[in-house]
């Protein structure tokens, strides 16, 4: 980026694109041209900055000014003020919600301060559609090192020594996995990148592919060299059109300059990458299911062993790694296993990317060293709970994980700690909940997801989860009993113990963890017929307080089912038999005359 004096980085991740960031970029370009600055200022569309809450985001280099919630019509002003006159556009700067102070430099923002970006190192810094920018940040140097100076065994040893564990959920040591595939004797082997990110609320893999596709391609080539494979396959969700486009561009560019294809860097090593598309099945995140899906079959998991390392795609040895895992690989080669192993905790090395979402101020994508506490993530980086509400729970690990409470906030995050408190790392979804969230409903939400996504092959997952869901539904309807709570626990444990694949083996976790951590809330539902969070509709009633009702008729007019009656200027009345509990009256009433009981 040497030729330009200034760079304007526009976030081109899916979230910001949904808020017209493409138009912002066009407007900035137009404005730069109109001002005759095209030789000194470059507008770059990058991958995700991570700070999705405040998107679309525009960052100016070299001064690191961070503009948030930019609209296309702001482009002229940014150019006119910041670029031409050197004055920051105050109203577009970020204001810290807790301290109410304006922060211009992203390095000073709480959201970025505690982050350590390895997997996301290039996201938001480079134009993902320009291979030169990747190369300028040590891109493909690791591949060159491996091909030139290291034997495959040395590459595998480095991975082993680094302590890198699979980021897709299981946490299996990556080096060991590579070793197993290397040990399998076969003329044809495959490297598969699992980009079938299906965990609702997690989008780190997509962000990496959108923001830094070459890091994954480079890692796949390194893996291919290490295990003896010449073909890489990326299994990616068809719902990720932007990531697919950027991967296609990246593959093309890498082929053009000989970083993919035959005789890479003149070393005689051949490796190429193809894309395969998922079609909307969460279970295909499981590696045997993923392989069947790539073969054109129903994505049903099969029993392991044989492991893919022995018998995978087309029955050939196959190494499957997730996107984030792979994104770490080139850095480990470049900086060394020792450096990587110095980050993190005893058994979990390096960093982890989390998709922070829910009732939190700073929704976005973050990367922190293993061992960072939940409290630091939620309050320091996440900026605390939205609207000043009280923290209630944090759900990690998506549908396979559990809900943790206040008492777990100081738990250092790593694979084993999360497991020991009844949750798991999963792919890195982290959903924060506040006092308004009913934990029974949250458990039900996840179960509904599992029900939708169960492949149906094994009994416990197919029928067991259905029964779990039905019991939860009964409880949220106020028809549950205390025996149902025991049944949930009993059945949940059997499902974990007997299911065929990881989906079923973890699907009861949201229930079991909420039963452990929020038992009183379950009890309130089944014994008192009460939903403490006021979320279970069947358990609440909207009532008009006669003393406060002015008879303004607003609620009468707004009620979608005509459940409200009453004369003008006299107190109204809600017919409970008609009320669908949509809450419109409650929201619209200007006199706080409607209460939820």
């Amino acid at each position, binding site marked *: 980026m040497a030729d330009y004096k200034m760079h304007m980085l526009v976030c081109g991740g899916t979230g910001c694109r949904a808020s017209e960031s493409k138009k912002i970029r066009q407007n900035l370009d137009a404005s730069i041209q109109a001002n005759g600055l095209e030789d000194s200022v470059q507008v770059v569309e990058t991958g995700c900055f991570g700070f999705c809450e405040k998107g679309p985001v525009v960052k100016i280099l070299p001064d690191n000014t961070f503009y948030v919630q930019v609209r296309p019509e702001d482009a002229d002003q940014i150019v006119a003020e910041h670029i031409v006159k050197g004055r920051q556009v105050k109203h577009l700067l970020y204001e810290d919600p807790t301290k109410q102070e304006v922060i211009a430099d992203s390095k000073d923002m709480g959201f970025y301060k505690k982050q350590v970006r390895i997997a996301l190192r290039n996201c938001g810094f480079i134009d993902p559609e320009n291979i030169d920018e990747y190369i300028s940040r040590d891109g493909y140097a690791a591949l060159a090192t491996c091909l030139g100076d290291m034997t495959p065994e040395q590459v595998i040893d480095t991975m082993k020594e680094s302590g890198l564990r699979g980021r897709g959920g299981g946490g299996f040591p990556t080096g060991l996995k590579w070793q197993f595939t290397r040990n399998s004797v076969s003329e044809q082997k495959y490297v598969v990148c699992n980009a079938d990110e299906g965990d609702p609320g997690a989008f780190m893999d997509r962000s990496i592919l959108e923001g830094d596709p070459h890091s994954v391609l480079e890692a796949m080539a390194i893996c291919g060299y290490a295990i003896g494979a010449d073909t890489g396959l990326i299994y990616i969700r068809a719902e990720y059109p932007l990531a697919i486009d950027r991967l296609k561009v990246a593959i093309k560019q890498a082929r053009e300059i000989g970083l993919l294809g035959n005789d890479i860097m003149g070393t005689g090593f051949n490796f190429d990458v193809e894309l395969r598309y998922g079609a909307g099945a969460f279970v295909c995140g499981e590696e045997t299911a993923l392989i069947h899906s790539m073969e054109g079959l129903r994505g049903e998991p099969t*029993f392991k062993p044989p492991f893919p390392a022995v018998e995978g795609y087309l029955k050939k040895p196959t190494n499957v790694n997730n996107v984030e895992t792979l994104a770490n690989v080139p850095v480990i080669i470049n900086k060394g296993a020792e450096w990587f192993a110095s980050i993190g905790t005893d058994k979990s090395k390096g960093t982890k990317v989390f998709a922070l979402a829910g009732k939190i101020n700073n929704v976005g994508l973050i990367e922190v060293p293993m061992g960072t506490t939940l409290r630091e993530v939620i309050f320091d980086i996440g900026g605390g709970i939205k609207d000043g509400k009280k923290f209630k729970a944090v759900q990690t690990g998506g549908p396979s994980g559990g809900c943790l409470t206040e008492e777990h906030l100081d738990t250092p995050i790593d694979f084993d700690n999360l497991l020991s408190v009844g949750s798991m790392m999963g792919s890195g979804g982290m959903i924060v909940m506040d006092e308004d969230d009913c934990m029974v409903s949250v458990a039900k939400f996840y179960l509904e997801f599992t029900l939708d996504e169960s492949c*149906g*092959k094994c*009994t416990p997952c197919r029928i067991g989860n259905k029964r779990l869901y*039905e019991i939860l539904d009964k409880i949220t309807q106020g028809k549950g009993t205390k025996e149902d709570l025991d*049944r949930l626990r*009993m059945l949940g444990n059997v499902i974990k113990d007997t299911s*065929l694949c990881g989906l079923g083996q973890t699907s009861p976790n949201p229930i079991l963890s909420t039963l452990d951590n929020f038992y009183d809330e379950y009890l309130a539902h089944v014994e008192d017929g009460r939903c403490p969070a006021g979320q279970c509709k069947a358990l609440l009633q909207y009532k008009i307080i006669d003393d406060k009702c002015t008879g303004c008729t607003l609620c009468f007019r707004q009620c979608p089912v005509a459940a409200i009656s009453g004369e003008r200027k006299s107190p109204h009345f809600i017919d409970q038999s008609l009320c669908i509990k949509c809450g419109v009256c409650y929201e619209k009433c200007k006199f706080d005359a409607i209460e939820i009981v």
Partner: protein
Amino acid sequence: MEMIKLTIDKKPVVVKPGTTILDAASSIGIKIPTLCHMKLHDMGIENKPGGCRVCVVEVEGRRNLAPACVTKAEEGMDINTHSMRAINARRTVTELILSDHPAECLTCAKSGECELQDLAQELGIREIHYEGEQSHYREDTSPAIIREMDKCILCRRCEMMCNEVQTVGVLSAVNRGFDAVVAPAFEMNLDHSACTYCGQCVAVCPTGALTEVDHTGAVIRALSDPSKTVIVQTAPAVRAALGEEFDLEAGTLVTGKMTAALRRLGFDYVFDTDFAADLTIMEEGTEFLDRLNRHLKGDKDVQLPILTSCCPAWVKFFEHQFPDMKDIPSTARSPQQMFGAIAKTYFADKINVKREDLVVVSIMPCVAKKYESAREEFATDGNPDVDFAITTRELASLIKLANLKFNSLPEEDFDQPLGESTGAGVIFGATGGVIEAAVRTAYEIQTGKSLEKVDFEQLRGLEGVREATVDVDGLELRIGIAHGLGNARKLLEDIRSGKSNFHAIEIMSCPGGCIGGGGQPYHHGDDSVIKKRFEAIYKEDAGKAIRKSHENPHIVKLYEEFLGKPMSDKAHHLLHTNYFDRSNKIES
């Protein structure tokens, strides 16, 4: 080979590498309950999706329970098959299956034969703790098979049989999660699909989800109608299996008792399909020799190999999947249909009964025979040559319904003239039997010499595809045999690509031939049953006074009195057929 040592329920056991926990346990007398798993060792057929999770056992040191049917034994494993944890899991899983299964056991067609019912009994399930929504599917009734998928437990055995063994490909798992079920494409009815009605799905279904269409009621009605003369024919494979329904050892021949039972059921004449099998040999054998001799004389247009055409599922299979080759099989009708055609002409005249007053019932080891008898071309003015085809199992239930103590019945003989048969007719019931019967006759007709030894051992066996040569007085006759439609497909593809050099090929759809038919008593995954039936068939053959079809005196008489000679115009009209292209054609 390095053997593997492990402990199961505190007993040491040594097994070969690759042995599953299930088989290892079985080798020391421990029977771990299973449901979806099924293995027919000698046929090379195995279903082990590892899906039902009934066979889970506790392996010391493992986080989760292990499914015994797919987990391989490993050195030093310490397994407990009946720990509280394993029993609790097994019972819970079974309760879950039952919670999505109609509680219609008392009236279910499969009651008493249902593997789920047995399992629930073995596990002592007395209450289902998990109530909830049950799956509901439209009932699908075809000419031969009924699908009541409410009773499906997703063991996937039918899917495996239909796709891997038979390569018919009509059934597939569809949908996912709780809505997953095995069904034809678009959940269409079977009779709109390429289903061959081989009935192997029925033969392996552990529950009442797949059953044959029940014609016993119609047979009882016919038997009680005084205006009707009701006659019956019994296929060769039935006598080798019917006894199993009455707790007799598999392979017990019950020809005489069966005949006695049929007579007591009220059939006016008890005949034998074996008679028609002899007739089939006369027609098919003649057709074969005709083609062979034309071929030997250098006729390039003649179609060889000739393929047998006795099996209705096989016929429907090539009509759907190989319509371009529909001229290759013999045009000879199956024994069932030859019997019906002769019965309703020659025999009806003989006893002076009008066609419409004569009811022909056949007892078949097969469910496809129901479909075959309903094919339009096998009827005259809407009156079918064979009115009802019932399975071995249906015959057993008729016998029970008639309060007969089967095992105490005397041995009786078939009626004449359509009850006379030879050993050649009997072996039609087993794979290789039709071609052996044909060879016995073809040899003598072709050479004019008498066979010294009628047993052609090289044609017998249970291998899926077999090849043999028979020396016909210097002429090397090359013969292929396939049982199971997947094996048949291989031979057909070889013919299509010009790689085949056989003169004649015998094909039977069911593994083992008719003895393993879809209408036979359920084998419940025990393939020794099929082997014993196989032996019984050849025992019956060996015990017959006449063992060559052309020597059957009543066959000789039939030609003299009625048909003239094989392949005559009359024979063509009554005993031969033609085939249809049933494939889908896509048009704009």
